[in-house]
């Protein structure tokens, strides 16, 4: 118990500490791939430090919602991070059925973020909020199609056990896992507002999703939002990396090595996708998400019939 809890706390701290680094890594790789030098690897830390020291400006007409929403966002992300195994370490929060809690905790952060965006009373934020609400509709189905089916196959309902159950089996299972990982990757791209769904670097309000929702936040609020964004990206990265584990044996050291290589591979993948993909038109995004959902369904059918 004591050691397990300690490991869990260490993994939460790892997620909290390294998530900006991961975002920096993705940006750096993207820059290199497009032939630029790019910002330093630690740029996200510098930006967070800068934002932390600024004064907080709230929009006229905003209410307590905008003031507590960044906090709710950060707290929910930390709780979500505490449910994920880093390496082979058992997370702090792990009980039967926590897969549902995980999905809904992310839902809570989204709920408050949409409210906070609408709280400003500007149509830019409204636009972002409406898009977020629309696209988020597909997030939970995709999540449950992937992890729910693994859960049904393994019989576990705890995220830690589900991720652990992904083992080297037969070839159809491996195909199944690979397709699952693609589905989750597409979800991660949407949820973390990366290309080709959303462009984190764009500065045109009309085309943004996530960035436009926090357009009027500054100082500490923006710091909190960005930090939660980094954590969210890292959470999805960890989910994605857990598909890599079956290709190894067990063991803590190996787990850590795979964790690090997995992060690097994933960051490269994100960088490559962001380099070669162009942004979809807004009206095509539901099709993209439906595609991710559909391969989830297809995948499950394939697996069931070949079993």
């Amino acid at each position, binding site marked *: 118990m004591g050691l397990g809890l300690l490991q869990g706390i260490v993994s939460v701290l790892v997620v909290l500490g390294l998530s900006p680094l991961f975002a920096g890594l993705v940006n750096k790789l993207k820059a290199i791939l497009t032939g630029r030098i790019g910002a330093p690897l630690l740029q996200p830390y510098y930006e967070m430090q800068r934002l932390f020291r600024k004064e907080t*400006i709230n929009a006229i007409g905003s209410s307590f919602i905008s003031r507590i929403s960044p906090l709710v966002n950060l707290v929910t992300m930390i709780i979500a991070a505490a449910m994920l195994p880093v390496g082979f370490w058992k997370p702090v929060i792990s009980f039967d059925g926590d897969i549902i809690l995980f999905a809904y905790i992310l839902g809570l952060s989204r709920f408050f973020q949409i409210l906070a965006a609408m709280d400003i009373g500007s149509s830019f934020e409204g636009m972002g909020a409406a898009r977020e609400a629309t696209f988020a509709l597909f997030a939970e189905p995709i999540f449950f199609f992937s992890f729910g089916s693994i859960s049904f196959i393994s019989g576990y309902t705890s995220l830690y056990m589900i991720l652990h159950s992904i083992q080297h089996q037969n070839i159809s299972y491996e195909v199944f896992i690979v397709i699952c990982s693609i589905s989750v990757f597409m979800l991660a791209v949407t949820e973390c507002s990366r290309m080709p769904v959303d462009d984190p670097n764009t500065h045109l309000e009309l085309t943004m999703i996530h960035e436009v929702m926090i357009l009027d936040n500054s100082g500490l609020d923006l710091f909190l939002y960005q930090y939660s964004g980094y954590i969210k990206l890292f959470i999805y990265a960890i989910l994605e990396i857990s598909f890599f584990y079956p290709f190894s044996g067990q063991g803590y050291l190996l787990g850590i090595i795979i964790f690090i290589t997995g992060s690097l591979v994933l960051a490269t993948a994100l960088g490559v996708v962001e380099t070669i993909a162009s942004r979809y038109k807004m009206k095509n995004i539901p099709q993209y998400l439906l595609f991710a959902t559909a391969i989830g369904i297809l995948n499950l059918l394939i697996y069931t019939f070949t079993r």
Partner: protein
Amino acid sequence: MNSIFLSGSSLLLLISLAVQLLSVAVIWLIKNERKAFLAANTVLLGGMITGLASALLTALYPAPSGNIILYEWLRLDPLGLYFLSIIQLVAIPTIIYNYSYLRHHIDKKKSVKSFVTFFTTLLVSTQLLVTANHAIFFLVCWEIMSMAAYLGMIFEKEKKEVQQGSFYYVTVAHALIFILYIFFFILHEQTGSWLFSSYHLPFATETMGPVLFILALIAFGIKAGFMPFHFWLPRAHPIAPTPLSAFLSGVILKTGIYGLFRTFQFLCPVPEWCGWVVLAVSLFSAIFGVWYALAQHDIKRLLAYHSVENIGIIGIGIGLGFIGSANNLPVIMYIGFGGALLHTLNHAIFKTLLFIGSGIVYQNLGTRNIELMGGIVHRSRYLAIAFLIGSVAISGVPPLNGFISEFIIFTGFFATANELKNFYPIVMLMLVVGLAFVGGLAAACFTKVNAVMFLGSPRREIQKFNTNVFDYISLGILALLCIVIGFYPAPFVGMVNSVIGSSLVNGTASAILVDMNWMYISAIFTTIALAVFALYVLKIRHEKKYGKRVSDAWGCGYEHITPRMQYTASSFADELNTIPQSVLVYHKKVTVSDTAYPVESKFESHSDDFVDTKVLLPLFGLLKWLIAKFEFLGQTDIRYSVAFILITIIVYSLIAFLWV
């Protein structure tokens, strides 16, 4: 067992009902309208609190002799007791809100005496309904309940929409009770008894099983508002006075759920197809209920559609329980029925909260159209907080009570897949995804409602916004219940567990619901709340150090921003509503000027009910057309009429002779 047994607490229950009825006498005896109302409402409140106390006492100290209260007509079995406590629990805040709502009408010189009479009758008949053990008595209570609701609904009868909506309601209520007559007559025919406690017709051995099940599903389904029988809800709920619409949506719909549970008791164990039928109907109701809600602009209509969604979620739990019963798996019955029963309680609480909240807004702004609202948070912060709590709870988002019951139902899917391998995992996965999808839609819907009503700046000038202490007491009680059940679900789950153990699952005790890591969930939720609070304190300190100010929102260089430029409810939901456009009968009309000098442009969006406009209205149109064909029979000549009467009598007599 034809004896009168009155334990202390059951006697107290009868007394409480008598006290509640006393309020009717009080209001008619006192001349002065205001005093009469205050006295009557206080008596009613006292009666209701006594009733709740007695229900809780009975739950804690069950009577030894099968809980018969009065002869064999009234009985308090755990299931009835559970629904009775829900009714009383929700009635108390509603009665408290009456102080505020009806006083407002008294000030406008409107008589509230008849409304209070009907409202009290409604409360009492609903309470008797769930304690009834005699079929005829049940039907009498059912009819009184329906009619009292109708009579209360026409409180503002001078309005055209009230006349139409209430007529719709009363028609549906009467169609429904005929099905119930047939249902109970068949039951009587088969068992020779009128008592609920003697109805045990195992589905498999009865030829009438499917008929009974279908009849019950239709009758109770209409009352509960399952799709496609939901059409009366969005018509009847908006036009009723707020306390009544809160009670209708929070409690009266649940009598349909109660009926389904009773039917299960009569027929158990049910075959598996019953479970699949209920699951399919419920999932359909849940998804399209919330999607219709998303397309509405009238807040009460929106909430009425949302009831359809929540009834769907309850139905999914019931369906799971049926599947458990068919496969003789008590674990699944516990989880399925547990989720359904707990969601019944939860929905009663947060739906009443939301109805009362929107009623307060309606009373102040004089409109139910959310497109004309906005910025109420700056007028009444506590109302906004209470409504926010209700919204978070109804969306099934942690850390409030809605999540707890949905969590149980989700667990049910996983448990069913695990217990019954075969093709079940696939179907259960579809249900998991379906329920998650419903959750996403509900969150979209309630962020929309909350944002458009309370946040931003007012789209139409708010002249006055008065709230009083009674509003806050009733909202406060309900919000507190949402929080308590969310943060500390263990005792409520335990209660549900024991109800199922003693009423729905015969013999097999199981603690599956109680053992569900509730302490973990309580701990996580408490951590979230404490962490947000702690961070808020730190944030205030940070702002003291680094500064804080307010400034204009980013307008992209445009300086004349008006509140009407904010995103509205229709623009927020437009993209989502366009997906199932034909089902929602969602149409948009844009009028844009194409001349050189821009003139006023207009945009309208509207959603009609599919069943309402595409099924019922054409059906009745057809009926009208058919009847018109027989118009020649309605001759003014009396001889024709006499001849027709004679023919009818002869036909009837012939049928009667052949029958005998």
